[in-house]
């Protein structure tokens, strides 16, 4: 006869107001095997917990049911309390009287009845609970960082500098991401590349970092501490071990006219190219979609010119498999496409550009070497109109959110333009100025007051071309929304920040969730901002939502610290909710008949064949056996087992049937 203790929590009014807790306690006291049954205002409070602890001691309880909130909330709390009294924590179960009863039903007998059912059901379960011991699994102390932008770089360096191994993969030929494209950064106006490139080099040279550029994640399996990542290294068509990065091939390539991704189409590159001078690694790749050799089999100029003999046309994509303990996702963001603003003639007029394109025009390393020139005719624009919220906060265009960074970089753009073209005239159309951040609002004020950028509150309705000028039709909502028409030489759209193409597929590969804009979702918006809902996978940067560099770097370091906390342990303890194959005395050894249905069902390949041998080594029987390290405790195998030989600890057949039978008795 078992000695169960039942503890009914009022949770203040939360349960008490709807459920007659006293009655529940009294009724449960009479249940067979219940030794002790009380109700109390707050079981999770210290006095509440000591109530349980004392009862365990005095009444010599061998099982505890706490009827309170959801086990997802306080199961650890109460199991800990029990453990403190030397009771095996897995002999403590919770009945969910709050989320599943008092909060969802009206006050009344039916509700109290249900409460009693829920408790007695758990009593029946606990009677059949077995003492369990937590399982230990080893941690692979290598982190996979996906995406080599500033977020990925920061996370990698933080982890690597703490002495742990990092594998950093980047889908482009070079790391650096969008930050490498930026001219200067707000609010301090320090040169983006000057602060980024040293870190890029550090990544390349760091003994703890393995860098794979031009590579993408193929698949990710496993679980926290023990992931298995398959990485596709796209064929660069050059042998990196031989290539010295001398650049002869890129100058030799006859195809010079391909639009350069790095320069947002404002510059050009060859078919074999290095995306930008400071690229890391500073070694070229061949764009097979453009290269004449791959189209016609002719040319081979780079091959003949290369002094190192590093050109390898026949190179294939390579897929490598690496064990990693943790993953940091830092895949960044993108900006809306050119077809997005027909009313602004975007994609039709050369001189209507987006923010990233303008960064390239401002950048000393850009196609105009930092001189602001019109893409159409190369003249210096005397009048530029900047349009904030171009796509952001625009439900009609499917983007309801604020892109967060545009207010600041638009102010920066206008300011830098004025610094470069002193007699130039900069006008910004805005809806609101969102400059929350250290020194941010001061920065915008500076643009307005010192650099005399003309801010007009209102959205632009249309842009069209007349005699080589761009006619911008806006309104000044602070003057009764009276129409404003500006003849501009150039227009810069602060287009919305959006998720990267393919982020949906990537999220599915990793089993992490994403929002309706395909930005990855954090585990909790307030208290778990860099975790995903999959343990061991973390987020940083604009892949979670558009954000500026300081926020991104901060998040990256936060994610790194999460990884390091994980790596600080040699093994993880997991709940012992795992499957076991029963064992009986010889000659049966186990009721397992060796059909291995369980093996086919197991998603984790945790089930293997075990041969039971006699002393003389003769195989007596082959049965299934579960690897506790790999088993995640889904219990699919249990449902498949014909002979009921495999069972799930904590959710054993005996336990669940007992629950059901109690409910319907």
């Amino acid at each position, binding site marked *: 006869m078992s000695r169960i203790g039942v503890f009914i929590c009022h949770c203040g009014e939360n349960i008490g107001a709807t459920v007659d807790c006293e009655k529940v306690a009294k009724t449960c006291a009479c249940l067979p095997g219940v030794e002790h049954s009380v109700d109390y205002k707050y079981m999770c409070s210290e006095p509440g917990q000591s109530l349980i602890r004392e009862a365990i001691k005095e009444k010599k309880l061998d099982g505890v049911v706490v009827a309170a909130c959801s086990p997802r909330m306080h199961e650890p709390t109460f199991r800990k309390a029990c453990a403190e009294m030397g009771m095996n924590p897995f002999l403590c179960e919770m009945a969910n009287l709050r989320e599943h009863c008092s*909060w*969802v039903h009206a006050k009344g007998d*039916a509700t109290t009845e249900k409460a009693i059912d829920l408790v007695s059901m758990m009593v029946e379960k606990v009677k059949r609970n077995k003492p369990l011991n937590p399982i230990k699994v080893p941690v692979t102390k290598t982190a996979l960082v996906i995406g080599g932008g500033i977020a990925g770089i920061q996370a990698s360096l933080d982890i690597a500098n703490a002495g742990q191994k990092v594998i950093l993969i980047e889908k482009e030929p070079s790391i650096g991401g969008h930050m490498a494209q930026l001219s200067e950064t707000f609010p301090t106006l320090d040169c983006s590349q000057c602060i980024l490139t040293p870190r890029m080099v550090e990544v390349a040279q760091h003994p703890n970092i393995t860098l794979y550029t031009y590579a993408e994640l193929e698949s990710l399996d496993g679980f926290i501490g023990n992931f298995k990542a398959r990485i596709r290294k796209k064929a660069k068509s050059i042998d990196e071990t031989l290539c010295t990065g001398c650049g002869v091939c890129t100058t030799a390539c006859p195809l010079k006219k391909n639009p350069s991704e790095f320069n947002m189409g404002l510059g050009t590159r060859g078919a074999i190219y290095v995306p930008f001078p400071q690229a890391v690694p500073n070694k070229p790749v061949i764009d097979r979609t453009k290269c004449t050799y791959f189209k016609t089999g002719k040319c081979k100029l780079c091959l003949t010119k290369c002094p190192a003999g590093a050109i390898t046309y026949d190179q294939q994509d390579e897929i490598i498999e690496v064990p990693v303990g943790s993953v940091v996702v830092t895949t960044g963001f993108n900006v809306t496409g050119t077809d997005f603003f027909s009313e602004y003639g975007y994609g039709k007029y050369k001189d209507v550009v987006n923010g990233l394109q303008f960064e390239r025009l401002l950048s000393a390393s850009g196609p105009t070497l930092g001189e602001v020139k019109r893409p159409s005719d190369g003249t210096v624009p005397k009048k530029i109109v900047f349009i904030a919220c171009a796509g952001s906060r625009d439900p009609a265009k499917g983007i309801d959110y604020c892109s967060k960074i545009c207010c600041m970089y638009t102010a920066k753009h206008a300011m830098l333009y004025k610094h470069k073209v002193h007699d130039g005239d900069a006008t910004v159309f805005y809806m609101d100025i969102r400059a929350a951040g250290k020194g941010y609002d001061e920065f915008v004020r500076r643009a307005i007051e010192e650099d005399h950028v003309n801010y007009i509150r209102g959205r632009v309705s249309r842009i069209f071309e007349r005699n080589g000028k761009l006619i911008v039709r806006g309104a000044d909502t602070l003057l009764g929304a009276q129409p404003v028409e500006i003849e501009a030489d150039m227009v810069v759209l602060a287009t919305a920040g959006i998720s990267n193409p393919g982020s949906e597929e990537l999220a599915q590969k990793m089993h992490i969730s994403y929002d309706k804009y395909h930005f990855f979702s954090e585990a909790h918006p307030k208290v778990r901002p860099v975790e995903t809902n999959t343990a061991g996978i973390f987020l940083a940067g604009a892949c979670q939502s558009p954000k500026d560099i300081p926020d991104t770097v901060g998040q990256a370091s936060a994610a790194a610290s999460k990884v390091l906390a994980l790596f600080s342990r040699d093994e993880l303890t997991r709940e012992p909710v795992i499957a076991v194959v029963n064992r009986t005395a010889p000659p049966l050894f186990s009721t397992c008949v060796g059909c291995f249905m369980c093996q086919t069902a197991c998603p*984790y390949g945790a089930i293997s064949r075990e041969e039971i041998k006699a002393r003389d080594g003769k195989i007596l029987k082959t049965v299934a056996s579960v690897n506790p390290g790999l088993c995640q405790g889904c*219990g699919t195998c249990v449902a*498949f087992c014909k002979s009921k030989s495999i069972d*799930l600890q904590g959710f054993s057949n005996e336990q669940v049937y007992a629950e059901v039978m109690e409910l*319907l008795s």
Partner: protein
Amino acid sequence: MEENFEPKILAYVCNWCTYAGADLTGTSRIKYASNVRIVRFPCTGRIDYNLLLKAFALGADGVIVSGCHPNDCHYTSGNFHARRRWIVFRQMMEYMGIDMRRIKFSWVSAAEGAKWADIVNTTVKEIRELGPAKEFSTMNKEVTI
């Protein structure tokens, strides 16, 4: 059908999606019929359909089976196995004379508190209309598992 009949309904749900979803129903204070009793499993993949037979054998009027949406399974594929086995089992149960309208199979994610309340309420309503499950009242309550 008899007056003020209160159906007994069991819900077999997975811990990660539907159980959490039902928790959300609670935290968002959405009210639903109190006829349902939730039995928690780690995953729908764990749900042995003998449990449905057992439930009806013991006089349940309806059973809800609910887990994560396809592709959202915490254990990657448990819910697919559940669905696959369900296809096989339902024919068997039909053959055994169980009224399939008494079994609800659904996906409820951790974010779908309202949907859970919905499912419970509609199920309770439908089962009320069907009346108490008589099919098994004669059957021996001790079905071996």
